[in-house]
């Protein structure tokens, strides 16, 4: 973060150097339709004009027939250049602005001027001093100028100074013809209102676009509030994608008390998986050596302890795990837990019993399993006397992908457990990708038994690997 701030500071300094050496843009072209050209300065050639173009002093803008442009000065004044018109931005300083209209019809909406500042519009035959008004100047092919004021007051006079100065007010017009003295201002009506109507329509459109931008900005802020709720759900792991590309909702609960059939020295962890078309759950009841205190974490922090240098205040004397799809179930667990002197560590926890049940039928109940393992290139064989067929075979059905499958049989009926490591998109990585960062992956466990009668004859669970590891399954 600090390095990036330094980079930004350097960039800003470079920009500041531009500020001191560069000119500040004073005019922006807000609209350009048809063939509109500009000269950046008196000596440059005509180039195509387009919206967003920035202009400065001595720039000239010209419109062809059926063309139109609108420019906005930095003080907020708006100038609409109608077809076949030409306007020179002669002087654009804070104290003085002078525009020269060579031909055509141009609508001026000038922002109110501060005291001491002047704004003049000149044509071949007239000069108008403005105080913050809305008016048009129309210069025809004979250089005759017609001034119409829609709002405010314009002080107008002939360019050669003859005939005196006139004050032309709202809804008044006045003409200036070369070699003839000007007549007094008169009222106007008729097709002039059409100009006014079109102009107001354009203004209304700009105002509506500004309202749209405001609305969309406000909507974006409110949508962010909804996004935050969704973010929390994903961050807390309450929804993931399984290996089949389907959404899995996960909720986890920790419960205690006789209300749910637990003893004072027991706590239960429940994980439920809900998909569009199925519901599976996993639970673990941990039985401790003593009553679990009101501050449960004093005991639960030892829930996964198996060995160490410190003698724990609490340890599990039994664990009862189960998984179900609401129709079928598997249950397994250990009992007879006690602390003994360890081999590699001063203390270790050992159990005297392990059991395994399918659909409430006991498949094994005896000493904890101590498999004898043989590793082959394409499989692993664990000999476990008394457990099912006596052999658990682990294979890798998807080659190098992180998917393993354990098979055995109970009285000739096949039982298997598939374990998938998944990324956020429900995809199974290959081993090389997985080994780069194993902790990035979630786990999906699928238990299948030929005698299951529930949906798809399987129990399908997306869980954090830690959950299965600490329970001793894998």
């Amino acid at each position, binding site marked *: 973060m600090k390095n*990036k701030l330094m980079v930004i500071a350097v*960039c800003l300094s470079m*920009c500041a150097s531009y*500020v001191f050496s*560069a*000119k*500040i843009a004073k005019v922006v072209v807000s609209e350009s339709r048809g063939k509109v050209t500009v000269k950046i300065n008196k000596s440059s050639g005509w180039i195509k004009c*387009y919206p967003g*173009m*920035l202009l*400065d002093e001595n720039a000239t803008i010209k419109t062809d027939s059926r063309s139109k442009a609108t420019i906005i000065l*930095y003080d907020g004044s708006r100038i609409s250049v109608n077809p076949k018109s030409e306007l020179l931005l002669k002087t654009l300083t804070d104290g003085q602005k002078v525009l020269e209209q060579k031909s055509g019809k141009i609508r001026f909406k000038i922002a109110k001027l501060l005291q001491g500042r002047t704004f003049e519009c000149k044509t071949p035959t007239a000069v108008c001093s403005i105080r913050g008004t809305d008016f048009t100047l129309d210069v025809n092919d004979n250089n005759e100028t017609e001034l119409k004021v829609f709002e405010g007051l314009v002080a107008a006079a002939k360019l050669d100074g003859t005939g005196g100065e006139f004050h032309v007010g709202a809804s008044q017009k006045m003409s200036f013809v070369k070699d003839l003295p000007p007549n007094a201002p008169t009222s106007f009506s008729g097709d002039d209102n059409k100009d006014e109507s079109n102009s*107001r329509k354009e203004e*209304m*459109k700009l105002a*509506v676009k500004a*309202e*749209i931008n405001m*609305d969309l900005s406000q*909507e974006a802020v409110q949508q962010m*509030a*909804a*996004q935050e*709720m*969704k*973010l929390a759900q*994903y*961050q*807390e*792991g309450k*929804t993931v*994608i399984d290996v089949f*590309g*389907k*959404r899995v909702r996960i*909720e986890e*609960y*920790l419960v*205690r008390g006789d209300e*749910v059939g637990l003893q004072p020295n027991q706590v*239960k962890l*429940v994980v439920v998986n*809900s998909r*569009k078309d199925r519901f599976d*759950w996993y639970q673990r009841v941990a039985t401790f050596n003593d009553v679990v205190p009101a*501050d*449960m*974490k004093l005991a*639960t*922090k030892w*829930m996964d*302890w198996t060995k160490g240098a410190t003698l724990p205040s609490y340890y599990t004397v039994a664990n009862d795990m189960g998984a179900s799809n609401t129709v079928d179930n598997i249950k397994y667990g250990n009992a007879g837990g006690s602390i003994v002197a360890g081999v590699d560590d001063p203390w270790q926890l050992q159990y005297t019993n392990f059991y395994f049940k399918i659909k409430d039928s006991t498949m094994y109940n005896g000493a904890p399993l101590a498999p004898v393992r043989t590793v082959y290139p394409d499989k692993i064989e664990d000999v476990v006397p008394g457990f099912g067929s006596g052999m658990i075979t682990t294979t890798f059905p998807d080659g190098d992908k992180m998917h393993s499958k354990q098979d055995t049989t109970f009285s000739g009926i096949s039982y298997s457990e598939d374990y998938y490591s998944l*990324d*956020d*998109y*429900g995809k199974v990585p290959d081993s090389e990708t997985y080994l780069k960062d194993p*902790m*990035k992956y*979630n786990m999906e466990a699928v238990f299948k038994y030929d005698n299951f009668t529930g949906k798809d004859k399987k129990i399908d669970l997306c869980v*954090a690997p830690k959950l299965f590891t600490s329970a001793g399954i894998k």
Partner: protein
Amino acid sequence: MLKRIVFFVVAVICFVLPLSASDITTVFNVKALLGQYAFEKESGSYNGNLNIDFVPAIKFSDKFSLLPAFYLGYNGVKDVTELVGGGTLVQQSADYNIALKPIINLSKNVKLRAKVGYMNQLFQETTDETWGKGLFDYNKVTAGADISHKNITAGYSCYTIVFPNYNTLAETETKEKYGSELSSSSVGKKILDFSASEISAYGKIYPLDSFVIDWSFGYNLKSFADQKVITEIVNVYKPENRADNSIAVSVFPSIALIPAGPVTLLGGLNVSMINYNSTQNHYNVKATSQDNPYTPKYYDYSETQIAPVVSCSFNTIPLKVDLSYQMGSRKYTERLAQDSAGTNLADKTKTDTNYLSLGLTYPLFEKMSLKMLVSQFNSVSNMKYEQVYRYNYTTSNYFVGVTYEY
């Protein structure tokens, strides 16, 4: 029912009231883009985004106008800044928004606006999710008013967001299918739904020629009707429901420059800060075997964003280039970072983000422009437990398309 009432009212306004209007001005904007999104080395398929804004503004007099507005959007390509950690590469979203906005010109410089609106956003995030059944689809009803004087606007709005397809499993499926083994008390059913009140103010300051400072301030209060507050004791909740509040401020000075040569620059620096507070706590069941699975004020954070923006126009060709870079840093005040195994660390969770965007606009015909946009987003965090959500990643997308403005 509310949706039908709003539709009916807006339809009446659009078809009946114009008969008495003095003027109707229509704004119609369309943006159609084709693009692709990528997350790390995974790319989604090509898809498109479409946005339509339609506002037939009705002017009754110089003092009163009515703006019925219709906004439609479809995003087939995910935005780089959108929620990514949940792993939804294929997300599509669609939304429609209808609003009604009367505007009263109290004087030349003072405007009063009111607004009512209804919005529906739909998501299709997984292969088994269909339109209208997205888990995180939501509806929003908004009402508000603001008043502006010259360059300053102040307003109040309130809105309600409802997620119709989301219920906690504890209150629905789990009880039906798991049975009574769970405790009877739970954190609530419609826990994502909330109502909010917002006070806002924004404006522009013109300290120098061509130098503009945009600023904004917002204060937001949220209340959750069905989300109880978790305590340190399992299955025991506080009597009051969750309530959040946030303050957001931003400042955006910008200036237009013509340096030597044919290039004109519009530069600015957007600085914004958000402070978010919530009464909700968190008990991490996955961390049951750790010393501290309980975190108070779990959702509290402060966030700072700094975004330099440069826009270039070339005075010899009608090409506009927009370059923006945004740095953000969000720090949670109580939420502890975790190592890759999920063990709590001493530091609080902090996520730094970088967003870089380059856009080109070239006018094709009158009112129609060609647009190209390339964006990249990067997130780095001290939270290394990423089994359920990714905090460290890079995303990118690109678009080519056209815009039409009437």
